[in-house]
C-alpha cells in the first residue's frame, strides 16, 4: 500500500533536506552569502525553484529563503496508527526534495567545478555530463516540440546485467525517447557505465544521457522539463500549476527504478508525481494504481525487464507510432545523432574519399516500379574493411499528387532517414554527401540495399499523400555513379533556378506553421518563400507539401491578401489568420520587421535578432554561441525575451537562412542594419552573405559587420562601426 511509499518518501525528504542544508551552511561559511551560484549557462537560474516559486537563486545567500520554504513543505513523518492523510504531504515532501537537491547540486558546481564535464558527450576521463546548459536544452527542445522526441525516461540504478541494460536503452531509443541516467543501484551498478562497458555510445547525440552517478542529479531531468514549459510553453516562472500540468499533458516522461528503492529514491519519485511522471520499478515495492496526479498509475512495480519499456509507456499514456522497417539494424530518430568514429569505421562512401551523389526525381507512374531496390556493383559483403566505394543513390518517385517542386523536399529527408539507421552516419547532401558505415552495422548484416529499403518505406510513410511509387537504384560502380552525378547536377541547377526566382511577391499564398503548438500553444509561424521558419527546418515548399499531405495539419495556406505596407510586410490576410490561430494572443504580425509586431517564436529558433540602440543596428546571435553579446545578454537570456509565443519588439527569433534573404529586416533598412554576428555564424554563411553584400552594391559591408573579435559590448562595437564607417550609423533611428 502507498502508506509505505509515502512514509519512506517523507523520511527520505527529511534526510535530503538535512543533508543539503548542512552543505549550504558549510558553503555559506566557506564562500560567503554573496558567492554566485548557478547551473552552467542557463537563463533559468535553478530551474525547478525558479519555475515553481518564481524565486531566482543567484547567490548562496538566496538559498536561505528556499530552505525555509523546504521546511514549511516538509511534513511530519507518517504515524503507525490513526495516520493523517499522507499523499499530499508526500507530494509536498517530494517538492522540498527537489528544491534541496537543486541547491545541493548548485553548490557542487562551485565546490568541484570539474565534477561534471559540462559537454554533450563524455570525455575520456569523465562519464558524467551534469545539467544540460541552455544550448543543449534548446537544441534538444526542438525535438520535443516537433514531436521527434515525445519525452524522457529518468533512470535510477541499473539492472544486474549490462546486456539487459543495453537492450532496455535500445528499446527506449526505438521509442524515440531521451534516456536520462542517474545514480547506481544497491548492486553498485549504474546504467551509463554499463552501456559504455557494452560498447554503446552515450551522450546527448544518441539520447543516452549520463547525467550523474547520484540521486540528487534527478533535478537535472526535472529541471529540463521545467525549462521546456517556460521556454516553449510560455509558462511564467512561479506559475507552478501551469508548469506542472503542462508537463503532465505534454512531456511524456517517467521514472524507471532498478533494484531496491531507498528512502531517497522514494522522495525523488514522490517529487516526480507532481509533474505527472510515474515510476516503474523492477523491484518488489508496493504499487499505487489509482489515478489522478499522474494520468494513469503512479507506481507500478515488479515489472519484468522484458516488459519494462512497454509497461512504462503504457503507464505514462504514450503512443509511439513506429513503423517497422525491415532491416537488421535498429532504426529511429534516437540514432540520428550517433557518430561513427575512426575506430568504429568499416568503410565510407563520398565525402571527398570517393564520388558520392544522391538525388530524387519524379517520373511518370508507368516508369516506376514501387518497392524496387537495385544495387549495381559491390556490396558490403564483397569488400574488406577500409575498402571505400563510390556511391550513387537515385530515387525515382511517381504519384498523382507529385509535383517537381516537392523533389528537393523529399530529397532532403535522405539525410535524417539514413542517419536513423543504427551504425550508419550520413553527412551532407546532393553531390557532397558522405556515408560512413560502422562495424556495428556490418556485424548485423548491413547491405547498401537497406538504404533503399529505408528510403522506400519512410518516404511512403511520411509522404504517402503525394507519392504512390518509389524505386531506388544504388550503384557502387564508378562509371554509373558518374552518369548519375551528371544527371543530378543538371537537376540541381534547374531546381535552384526555379526556387531562386520565387519571391514573396510571386506567390499569393504563404503557409502557417503550428507544428510547435503541442508545446507553444499561442505561437504561429508564417513561412514565406523568402522567410523560412525560424527553426531553419521548414521552408515555404515544406509548408506546401505538408499541406498537400495533411490538409488539416499544422501547415495551412494563408491567402496573404492585400499588402498594406510592403516595407513592414503587413498583409491583411496574414493578420486575420494569425489573430485567429493564436486565439487572439497575437493580433498583428509584420513579416519583415524586428521593431514593429515582430513574429512570435516558440523557442526553437536557430538564432535571435536583437536591436542595439546605441549602434543603431541589429545583432544576430545563433544558438551555438555561448559567449556574451553586445546586447549585454547571452543567447540564453535573449531566448527568454524572444520565446514563449509573445511579441517583444526589438527581439525576434530568426533562421540562419533568413539572414541572406532579400526580405531581411526590410522595415529597418535590411542587411545594412546588421552590425554584429558571432564569428561562427558569420563564417557559416559567409559565401551567401558576401553575395548579398555585393547584390546590394556594398561588397565592403561584409567586413564592416563585427564579431566577438571586435568586441562584446555596444561601446566596443560602436567604435568599430565608426572606424569602418558602417552604414547603420547614418540610417534613421530604428528605436
Amino acid at each position, binding site marked *: 500500500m*502507498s502508506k509505505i511509499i509515502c512514509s519512506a518518501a517523507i523520511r527520505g525528504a527529511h534526510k535530503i533536506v538535512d543533508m543539503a542544508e548542512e552543505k549550504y551552511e558549510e558553503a555559506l561559511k566557506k564562500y560567503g552569502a554573496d558567492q554566485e551560484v548557478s547551473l552552467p549557462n542557463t537563463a533559468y537560474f535553478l530551474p525547478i525553484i525558479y519555475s515553481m516559486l518564481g524565486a531566482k537563486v543567484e547567490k548562496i545567500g538566496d538559498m536561505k529563503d528556499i530552505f525555509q520554504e523546504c521546511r514549511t513543505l516538509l511534513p511530519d513523518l507518517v504515524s503507525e496508527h490513526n495516520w493523517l492523510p499522507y499523499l499530499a504531504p508526500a507530494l*509536498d515532501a517530494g517538492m522540498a526534495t527537489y528544491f534541496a537537491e537543486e541547491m545541493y547540486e548548485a553548490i557542487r558546481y562551485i565546490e568541484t567545478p570539474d565534477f561534471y564535464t559540462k559537454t554533450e558527450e563524455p570525455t575520456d576521463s569523465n562519464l558524467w555530463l551534469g545539467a544540460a546548459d541552455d544550448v543543449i536544452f534548446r537544441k534538444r527542445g526542438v525535438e520535443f516540440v516537433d514531436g521527434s522526441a515525445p519525452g524522457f525516461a529518468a533512470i535510477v540504478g541499473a539492472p544486474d546485467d549490462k546486456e539487459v541494460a543495453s537492450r532496455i536503452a535500445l528499446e527506449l531509443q526505438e521509442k524515440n525517447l531521451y534516456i536520462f541516467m542517474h545514480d547506481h543501484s544497491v548492486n553498485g551498478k549504474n546504467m551509463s557505465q554499463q552501456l559504455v562497458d557494452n560498447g554503446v555510445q552515450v551522450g546527448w547525440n544518441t539520447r543516452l544521457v549520463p547525467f550523474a552517478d547520484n540521486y540528487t542529479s534527478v533535478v537535472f531531468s526535472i529541471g529540463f522539463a521545467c525549462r521546456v514549459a517556460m521556454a516553449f510553453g510560455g509558462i511564467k516562472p512561479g506559475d507552478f500549476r501551469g508548469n506542472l500540468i503542462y508537463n503532465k499533458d505534454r512531456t511524456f516522461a517517467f521514472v524507471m527504478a532498478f533494484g531496491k528503492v531507498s528512502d531517497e529514491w522514494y522522495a525523488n519519485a514522490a517529487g516526480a508525481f507532481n509533474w505527472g511522471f510515474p515510476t516503474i520499478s523492477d523491484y518488489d515495492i508496493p504499487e499505487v494504481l489509482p489515478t489522478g496526479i499522474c494520468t494513469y498509475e503512479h507506481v507500478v512495480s515488479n515489472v519484468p525487464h522484458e516488459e519494462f519499456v512497454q509497461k512504462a509507456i503504457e503507464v505514462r499514456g504514450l503512443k509511439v507510432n513506429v513503423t517497422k522497417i525491415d532491416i537488421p539494424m535498429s532504426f529511429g530518430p534516437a540514432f540520428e545523432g550517433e557518430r561513427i568514429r575512426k575506430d568504429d569505421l568499416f568503410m565510407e562512401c563520398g565525402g571527398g574519399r570517393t564520388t558520392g551523389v544522391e538525388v530524387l526525381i519524379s517520373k511518370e507512374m508507368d516508369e516506376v516500379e514501387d518497392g524496387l531496390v537495385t544495387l549495381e556493383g559491390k556490396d558490403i559483403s564483397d569488400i574488406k574493411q577500409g575498402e571505400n566505394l563510390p556511391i550513387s543513390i537515385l530515387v525515382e518517385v511517381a504519384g498523382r499528387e507529385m509535383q517537381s517542386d516537392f523533389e528537393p523536399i523529399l530529397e532532403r529527408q535522405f539525410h535524417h532517414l539514413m542517419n536513423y539507421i543504427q551504425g550508419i552516419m550520413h553527412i551532407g547532401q546532393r553531390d557532397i554527401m558522405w556515408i560512413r558505415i560502422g562495424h556495428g552495422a556490418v556485424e548485423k548484416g548491413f547491405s547498401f540495399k537497406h538504404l533503399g529499403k529505408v528510403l522506400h518505406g519512410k518516404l511512403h510513410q511520411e509522404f504517402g499523400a503525394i507519392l504512390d511509387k518509389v524505386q531506388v537504384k544504388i550503384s557502387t560502380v564508378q562509371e554509373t555513379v558518374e552518369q548519375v552525378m551528371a544527371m543530378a547536377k543538371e537537376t540541381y541547377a534547374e531546381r535552384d533556378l526555379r526556387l531562386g526566382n520565387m519571391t514573396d511577391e510571386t506567390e499569393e499564398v504563404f503557409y502557417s506553421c503550428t507544428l510547435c503548438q503541442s508545446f507553444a500553444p499561442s505561437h504561429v509561424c508564417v513561412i514565406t518563400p523568402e522567410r523560412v521558419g525560424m527553426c531553419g527546418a521548414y521552408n515555404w515548399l515544406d509548408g506546401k507539401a505538408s499541406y498537400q499531405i495533411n490538409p488539416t495539419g499544422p501547415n495551412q495556406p494563408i491567402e496573404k491578401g492585400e499588402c498594406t505596407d510592403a516595407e513592414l510586410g503587413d498583409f491583411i490576410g496574414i493578420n486575420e489568420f494569425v489573430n485567429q490561430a493564436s486565439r487572439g*494572443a497575437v493580433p498583428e504580425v509584420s513579416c519583415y520587421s524586428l521593431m514593429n509586431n515582430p513574429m512570435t517564436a516558440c523557442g526553437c529558433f536557430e538564432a535571435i535578432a536583437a536591436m542595439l540602440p546605441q549602434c543603431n543596428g541589429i545583432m544576430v546571435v545563433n544558438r551555438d554561441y555561448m559567449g556574451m553579446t553586445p546586447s549585454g545578454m547571452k543567447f540564453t537570456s535573449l531566448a527568454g525575451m524572444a520565446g514563449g509565443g509573445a511579441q517583444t519588439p526589438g527581439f525576434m527569433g530568426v533562421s540562419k537562412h533568413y539572414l541572406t534573404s532579400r526580405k531581411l529586416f526590410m522595415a529597418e533598412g535590411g542587411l545594412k542594419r546588421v552590425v554584429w554576428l558571432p564569428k561562427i555564424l558569420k563564417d557559416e554563411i559567409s559565401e551567401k552573405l558576401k553575395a548579398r553584400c555585393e547584390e546590394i552594391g556594398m561588397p565592403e559591408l561584409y567586413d564592416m559587420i563585427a564579431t566577438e573579435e571586435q568586441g562584446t559590448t555596444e561601446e566596443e562595437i560602436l567604435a568599430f562601426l565608426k572606424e569602418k564607417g558602417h552604414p547603420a550609423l547614418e540610417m534613421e533611428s530604428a528605436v
Partner: protein
Amino acid sequence: MATSKTGCEGCTDITCSSSKLVLEQDIAKNVRTAYDRIQARGMAACLFGSGGTCCRNCNMGPCQIIDGVEDMIGVCGATADTVAARNFARTVAAGAAAHGDHAREMVKGFIETARGNGPHEIKDVEKLHALAKIFGVEIEERDVNDIALEIGEMALAEFGNQSEQGMTMLKRATKKRQEIWKKLGIEPRGVDREVVEMMHRTHIGVDQEYENIMLQASRCALSDGWGSSMLSTELTDIMFGTPVPRRAIVDLGVLKKDQVNVTVHGHEPLLAEALCIAAEDPEMIELAKKQGAKGINLAGVCCTGNEILMRRGIPVAAGFVQQEIALSTGAVEAMVVDVQCIMQSVAEVAKNFHTDIITTNYRAKMPGGVHIQFDEHAALESAKEILSRAIKNYKKRGTCYIPEETKLDVVVGFSHETINYMLGGRFRASYRPLNDNIINGRIRGVAAMVGCDNFKLADDAHEIIARELIKNNILVVATGCAATSLGRAGLVNPEAARYCGDSLREVCETVGMPPVLHMGSCVDNSRILIALTQMVNQGGLGEDIDDLPAIGTAPLWMSEKAVAIGQYFVASGAQVVFQDLATSGAKTFNKYLLEDMMGTYGAHWNVAKEPLDIARTMIEAIESKRDALGINKKKERVLFDMDMRRDLGDGSGLTDVGCHGPT
C-alpha cells in the same frame, strides 16, 4: 422497566456499548432517558400528524384531512396536498430559521472580531481573500481586519436584504444551477425575508397550490444552504481556522476521571471557542488544581462538539442521543449549552448528580438550568465565569463511572479545502483525482450522511448504512450527529479502509484518508454543496450537481433543520433519502416530493425505512447516475500520440490544463 435497576433493561435499541455500560451502573439507576420515555409513553404517533394532514394554521380547526374523502377536507376547503405542503414548508422554514439565527450570531461575532474586540482574530487570511473575491471586496493593500469588517457587514446585510437581488453566494453554484433557480424565480434574497414569506404564504388562505408553496420552500431552504449556513461556515472558518486533518477521540470514554469535565452542547461555537481559550488559561488551571483536579477537560456534545472537534481536535463525548447518558456517568461537572437540540430532560438527569446545566443564550433557558448569559463583547470573561462554576463543582463529584475503554480514534477536519489539498498537495491541489477515480469506477460515487440521530431506529443505523456504502465502493462524507455516530463505529479512521470494497480501499490507502470523511457540524453541510460544485467544475462528471453520482441521506433525522437541509440539497440537484417524511397522507403532494420534483430540480426526495433499504436506494441512485454519464462502460486506456498532443493546443484538450501560455 423504565424504573428497573439498570434504567433501560430490555431496551434492544441501544447497541452502543458505552451507552449500555453507563446505564447498567448503579449510579444511573434513577436516570430516565428518552429510551425510557418512549416505552413509558406507550402510544403510537398520531396518524394525521405523521401523515402531514393535520392543519392547525387557523382556529377553525384543527382539521384532520383524509385524502380522497370528499367530506374530510379542511373547513376552509384546503385539500390534503395543500395542508401537507404547508406543514412541510413550515418545517423547512423552522429549520432555516434555526440556521439563520445561528449564522446571525456568528456574523455578529465575526464583525466584533474584525473590530478587534474579544479574544478571537482572523486566522485564515487566504480564505478571507477568497471570500472577498466572491463579495467583490477589494483586498489590495488593505488591512485584514478592514477587509473582514467590510465582508462582515455585507454578510449581515444579507439577513435583512429587501431588494430583489439574489444572495451573493449563489454565484458559487454551477452556471446551469443558477439558471434553473433564475428560471423558477427562486433565487433567495434575504435570510430573514424568505422565512417570513414562507410563514406568510402558509397562513390561512394564502398560497394554496402545493407546487407554488414548494417553490418558496425551495427558496427558503436555499437561503439557508447557499445563504446563512454557508456564511456561518465560511466566516467561522476565517475566524477560528479552516479545519485541517487532525486526530481526536470520540465516545463517552473521552471524559476524564481526574479532571474537571465540561461538556459543551448545542450548535454555536462562539462560546465554545472562548471556553477552549479559557481552559488553557493558567489561572483556570490553577483553580482546577486547587479543587484537586489535574486539569480541565472540555468535551463536545452534538454540533458544538463537532465545531471544536474539527478546528481544535477537542474530543466529542456524545451525539444527540447520548446527551443524557453522558451526564449519567456522574463525571460531568457542567454541561454548557447554547442553542438547538438540547433535551429538556438533561436538567432532570443532572438532578441525580452534582452536575450543573448552564444555559448561556437568552433564547434558550430551561427549568432547573443555571443561566449565565454569554456576552460576546466580553467572551473570555463569560467563559471564565462559566468554567469557574464548573471547576467549583469538581469537589462535589460523587461516585462516577466512565467507560474508559470505549473511545475511538478518529481523523477529522475534511473541509472542502482539505479535500482539495489532500488530493494533490500544495502544488497540484484539485478535485481531479476524486473525479478521475469516480470516472474509472474505483469510487462508484459519493454519499453524504448528515443530520441527527433519533430513537426511531437502533443507534447503529448510521453504521449499517455506511458499512454497506463503503463496501460498495462509495465514499462517504458525514456531518453532524451522523458523523459522531460513525466515529463511534470506528469508521472515521483511516484504518477503516479495510472495511471498504477493494477499489475504494485502494484509493483510501493511496491518499491515507478514512472512507468516511468528517466535514463538520450540521451547519457545515454547505461545505458539501461547495465540494459537489467543485466536482462538477473539475470536469468529466456532467454539467451540474444533478449529473453527479452523489446522494445524501439524513437517515435518523429529527430536527426541522434536517428537512431544510434536505430541501436545499434537492433544490441544488442532489437526491436525498430520509427514513420517513410527514407527507404520506397527501398522495399527490407525496408523489411530487418523491418523483415529480425531478423534472423541476433534477432531483427528488426518497424514503426508505430500514438502514439497508436506505443504503440500497443510495447505491441504485448512484449507479443510475453513472449509467447516465456513460462512465459505467468499460473504456480502453487512451494513449497519446503526437497528433493528440498537438490537439491540446486549442485548449479543448485535457480538462485540467491550467495554462495556455501568455494571453
